[in-house]
């Protein structure tokens, strides 16, 4: 039973403890994590900056301090070289909202009615381009101004105000309109992480020998397009769109999926286009 939710428990622990550390930074003055997911300081010394926000500021034709640049570099290197798009499933608080919506979809049978209107998974990359163009036109970081992710984490740390309407909108969108609608199709931040984490090391590995084609992994995966190799070849998940949530690893009864390092020598390195 626990095996089936191992990573889910770990992810929720990670998401909630990061938020609690931010909240205690504001309310109790703890120094572990101060600020929020846009920009923060770890132990009052190491800066962390959301690189996509920074990119929008650049697009708006403004420069920021070296401290903020260093913070963004740390984030890019950590997720880009090592952890993959795990920001989305291990850090982002909105993930809990959309996961709840998608779980409810399944439970209530809404999912059985179909996946909703056709929205391309590529839409998020168009949203990236548009947010940069709008930043250029308006002179402010465009997505930062309307981002439901920022509204939610800032709301938890500093007070929600009317921000709940935006969060509810995303929840209802995922519940009634489109399965995995926001995180899997529209969110430019998720798209940005998908782009920079194409070559990161931590990967889900699939073993064809163990696979019995039960398709539990594809059934559960919020980014199904990243698993074209299932039952066909043994290989690592190649796409940056995989959020390393580990749901496929949990639900696979044959242990055909597991976390690994992309270039580990014992692995079959057959590549998948």
């Amino acid at each position, binding site marked *: 039973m626990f095996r089936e939710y191992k990573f889910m428990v770990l992810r929720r622990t990670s998401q909630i403890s990061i938020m609690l550390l931010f909240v205690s930074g*504001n309310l109790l003055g703890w120094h572990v994590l101060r600020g929020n997911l846009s920009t923060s*300081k770890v132990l009052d010394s190491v800066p962390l900056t959301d690189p996509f926000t920074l990119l929008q500021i650049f697009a708006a034709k*403004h420069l*920021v301090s070296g401290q903020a640049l260093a913070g963004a570099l740390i984030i890019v290197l950590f997720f880009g070289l090592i952890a993959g798009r795990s920001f989305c499933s291990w850090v982002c608080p909105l993930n809990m909202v959309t996961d709840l919506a998608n779980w409810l979809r399944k439970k209530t049978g809404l999912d059985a009615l179909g996946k909703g209107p056709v929205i391309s998974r590529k839409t998020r990359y168009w949203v990236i381009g548009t947010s940069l163009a*709008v930043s250029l036109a308006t002179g402010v970081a465009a997505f930062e101004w309307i981002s439901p992710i920022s509204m939610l984490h*800032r709301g938890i740390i500093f*007070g929600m105000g*009317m921000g709940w309407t935006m969060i509810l909108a995303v929840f209802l969108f995922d519940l009634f309109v489109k399965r995995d609608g926001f995180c899997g199709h529209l969110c430019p931040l998720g798209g940005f992480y998908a782009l920079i984490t194409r070559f990161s090391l931590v990967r889900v590995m699939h073993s064809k020998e163990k696979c019995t084609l039960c398709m539990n992994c594809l059934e559960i995966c919020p980014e199904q397009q990243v698993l074209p190799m299932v039952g066909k070849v043994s290989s690592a998940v190649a796409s940056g769109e995989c959020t390393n949530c580990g749901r496929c690893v949990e639900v696979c009864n044959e242990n055909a999926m597991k976390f690994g390092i992309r270039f580990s020598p014992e692995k079959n390195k057959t590549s998948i286009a």
Partner: protein
Amino acid sequence: MVSGDKEEKMPERRKFLFDMVRGLGAATVGGLAWTDMLDGKKTFATILRPPGAVVEQEFLAKCTKCGLCVEACPYKALLLAKPGDERPVGTPYFQMRENPCRMCRDIPCAVSCPTGALLPSLVSDSDEQGKSRLDVNLTKIGLALIDRETCIAYWGIQCDACYRACPLIDKAVTVEYTKNERTGKHAMLAPVVHSDHCTGCGICEHACVTKKASIFVLPRELAMGESSDRYIRGWDDADEERMQGLPEETTTRTPRSEKSPLDYLNKGDL
């Protein structure tokens, strides 16, 4: 990709181009709506930003809404705009009447900003050795204005609440003593604000005894006028220098100025 014949390849390429055009179209529609939405949200001239804030348009671009300045404020005077607060969401601001800036000497809010939206250098000068040091008195959050019609000191009632509360007493706020002409035998002790020293901290607004504060802080761009460089103050040496770059020739054309001034004086019907 496995190579097919030309008939198979062309639709593939056409589909790609079609998708690109459709994507561009959708992005343009979305982008225009998005731009329109942000444009209305950007102009908030009445917001009082923390000490060291760069000019508003640049501030809006550089502030990542992290709230570190808000966390740094020991008096919890800085607020972070929430959705519904009618201010750019996530940006820091003061509500002086409720909780003014206490002008901390180490300016923790300005120092804590990681992106350069607040610049400590804007609230610093240099000491004897030429080393930069923070000076909170250089802060320009805004400028205090007095509504003389509701300020009871201007009615002749004795009140010096703002004057006494001002951290730069006798510099930013002074009291003007005049005879109360209405009663003929009392004094008026009227507060006056001086823009060269006022930091816009809002302690006066907080202290004001009237129902709605009769002294209140507004951003400087909103509170101040600007005189032309052509007008010089006789008591200010630097004023002559301002005149240096100005063009010699100035002419104002009106129907009356077509004639020479002498004509105007001698022949005109005055």
